[in-house]
């Protein structure tokens, strides 16, 4: 105490000496360290932490942090064609307004009464997602789309008691990495794709599926952008072998593309970042899982469920239910584990879907598909690049292959960057079989002029 400077900290109301003294007097102590003197000496940190000098005033802090942030160049400043799991969609102002509210931003695990509004908003999130994916049971948002996939496939494992997973070779490599870690007790087999279309090779699927297959997984649209058109056949093959069919679906596509349950999916999952979350360098990710209304599915969700109740006065209330499934209910006996996830993003997605409505989601999907088809058409004309999987239809992403150019994707992207454009994600390392390729993304915020500019710049760079 004595060697400390006498600083009053704005975040700490009792850092005023006279208040401290009053409280210490009440406890009959002379210095605060008497309160923790029973910690063994060898466990006490005797020195002062070696940290930078603090920026005590908000003015200094703001200057310091803004100076660091100014080194970033954002997608507001450049034209962006990056996607690959994190998307720049339009965020309606009301989404930010609601998730900035102190009440939601700083609430936590309060329950039925104290946080009634939060509980209702979460119920509305699961209800709105239920309509979007056309399923009855939706869990509270999980960490990200990757975790949603991992958990969905472990659900398949628990429900079937089987140990093998079949996943497409084209799937998101980051999620595959998560899956290899999370399902390391299971065998994960990759299903080949048709080199022309990217579509699942059904013969390969039939060869690899067996009575040991717990789940067959696809992404739709796929990570590489194309729409998988054989959903129904894949689901049928999975079900014929008693396996569970899990589909990861991009919610932004579900105004125009069929909900996976209607071509056979037993579990639908994915990421809701596209529903009103800023990218925030990956901070906006958040996963969803939905299933049929069957006990064996319900009891295998590891997340909280906010179930609806009515009281004597006819009021609706919401309460965390079937808690014995979760690790808060039963420790290691639980279904996987549970902790704080992404509640604020669930509420934000509820706001987003309420604003969009059925027509908004349709218009969104339609707008994106027009843009991607247009971009593919315009870019296909450029010498030195070709659009891959052009026999399939893309939703918002597509692959540009630069094998015919002498430049690598990395070099091309550097040159694009010099022209104020973030080029597509370099696939040349993670998908060697696709050659010198990059994954490009357009959304409703991509303007026609952006696409035209990209085409012009690429012409220059490749020509």
């Amino acid at each position, binding site marked *: 105490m004595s060697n400390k400077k006498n600083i009053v900290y704005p975040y700490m109301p009792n850092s005023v000496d006279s208040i401290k003294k009053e409280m210490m007097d009440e406890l009959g102590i002379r210095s605060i360290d008497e309160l923790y003197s029973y910690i063994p000496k060898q466990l006490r940190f005797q020195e002062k932490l070696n940290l930078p000098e603090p920026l005590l005033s908000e003015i200094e802090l703001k200057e310091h942090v803004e100076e660091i942030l100014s080194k970033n160049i954002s997608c507001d400043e450049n034209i962006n064609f990056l996607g690959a799991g994190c998307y720049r969609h339009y965020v309606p102002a009301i989404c930010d307004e609601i998730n900035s509210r102190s009440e939601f931003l700083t609430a936590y695990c309060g*329950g*039925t009464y104290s946080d009634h509004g939060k509980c209702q908003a979460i119920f509305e999130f699961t209800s709105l997602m239920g309509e979007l994916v056309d399923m009855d049971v939706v869990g509270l948002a999980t960490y990200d789309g990757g975790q949603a996939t991992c958990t969905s496939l472990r659900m398949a494992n628990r429900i079937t008691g089987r140990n093998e997973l079949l996943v497409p070779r084209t799937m998101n490599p980051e999620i595959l990495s998560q899956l290899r870690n999370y399902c390391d007790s299971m065998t994960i087999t990759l299903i080949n794709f048709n080199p022309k279309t990217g579509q699942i090779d059904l013969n390969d699927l039939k060869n690899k599926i067996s009575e040991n297959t717990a789940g067959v997984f696809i992404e739709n649209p796929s990570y590489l952008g194309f729409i998988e058109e054989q959903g129904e056949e894949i689901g049928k093959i999975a079900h014929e072998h008693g396996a569970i069919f899990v589909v990861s679906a991009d919610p932004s596509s579900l105004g125009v593309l069929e909900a996976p349950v209607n071509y056979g999916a037993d579990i639908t999952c994915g990421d809701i970042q596209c529903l009103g979350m800023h990218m925030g360098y990956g901070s906006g990710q958040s996963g969803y899982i939905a299933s049929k209304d069957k006990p064996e599915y319900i009891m295998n969700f590891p997340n909280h469920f906010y179930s609806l109740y009515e009281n004597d006065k006819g009021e609706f209330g919401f*309460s*965390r*239910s*079937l*808690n*014995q499934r979760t690790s*808060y*209910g*039963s*420790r*290691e*006996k639980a279904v996987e584990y549970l902790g704080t996830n992404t509640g604020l993003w669930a509420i934000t997605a509820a706001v987003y879907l309420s604003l969009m409505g059925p027509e908004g989601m349709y218009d969104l999907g339609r707008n994106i598909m027009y843009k991607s088809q247009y971009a593919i058409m315009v870019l296909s004309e450029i010498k030195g690049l070709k659009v891959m999987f052009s026999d399939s239809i893309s939703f918002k992403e597509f692959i540009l292959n630069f094998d015919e150019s002498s430049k690598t994707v990395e070099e091309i992207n550097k040159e694009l960057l010099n022209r104020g454009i973030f080029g597509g994600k370099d696939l040349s390392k993670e998908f060697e079989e696709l050659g010198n390729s990059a994954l490009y993304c357009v959304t409703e915020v991509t303007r026609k002029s952006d696409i035209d500019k990209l085409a012009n710049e690429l012409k220059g760079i490749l020509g």
Partner: protein
Amino acid sequence: MIKRLGFIINPIAGMGGKVGLKGTDGEEIVKKALSLGAKKVAPNKAKITLKYIKDNIDGLEILTYPGDMGEEECKELGITSIVVGNINMENTTYLDTEEAALRMVEKKVDLILFAGGDGTARNIYTSVGDRVPVIGIPAGVKMHSAVFATNPLNAGKIVVDFFNNTNVEIRESEVMDIDEEQFRAGRVVAKLYGYMNVPYEQAYVQSLKAGGIYSDNICLEGIADYVIENMESDYIYLLGPGTTTKKILERMGLPYTLLGIDIVKDGEILVNDANETEILEIVEDKKTKIIITPIGGQGYIFGRGNQQLSPKVIKVAGKENIVIISTPNKLIDLKRRPFLVDTGEEDIDRMLEGYYKVIVGYDETYVYKCSY
């Protein structure tokens, strides 16, 4: 409908305690206790309970026994009671307690409240069995049975709760006693006499917030399934008394005795309710596992209610083959006290001391200490 409470005091219960006598079963001992200056303790404790009942229930009909078996205490508190039966005012014995309890059952009381110790509980059990719910005011020297409230005031609260609430939980609770002769000689030979129906003390029911943890029954099923899945065919299994252990046999579809030792091998019952000799004949030197559960509220794992699992039997099985199972709530109800053993042989007791991985659910273990 008239609410009817039977009220019985064993006036001499608890007298031996302060003068170093372990219990007052038997005339000689009572005399000895009195000569050592012992004072009656049960009546005063019972009055605490009674006062609380008087202040909190209206229209209760109290049936009691003459003199210091309840009548006087009621009078002192200004309670009108219906006195049944006759006693020798100078010298009450256990027969009076038994008779009193029987009369209460005949008069169709809803609940019997008694003050005493294990001996008294046993007497009540002889007459009542599971016909009428019972709650004990703790007033004896020995109180190994699980039929007592934690203190006289709480006994009153349980009675009030019983009559004022419709959905009071009734649990089967152990009636235990030990042989006082042996006890005074420093040896404890305890026996499980049976189970009586006891209203459960609500204050200790753990709060299941919005379906928090699994119910006891689901835990029991988990424990049983885990034990069954891990049974090995070359082992003989000795299952001790109690509802926890017998859940295993129930789920195996085998016949069982609640109070006895049942022996299982290869999914078949070898003997039900085996005595020590029968156990030793069967196990000889074969690989044997003993599956037991602690006695609720007490924590005894050997030497109370399962004497058939004698030091010899324990030796044949070996400490490493003792499997202890319990619901988490049962462990919590021990209120941090360790498991206890009292096999009658000190070296065995010492050998049994230490820590056990207690199975508390499916593939779920808590580590718990055992002392002697």
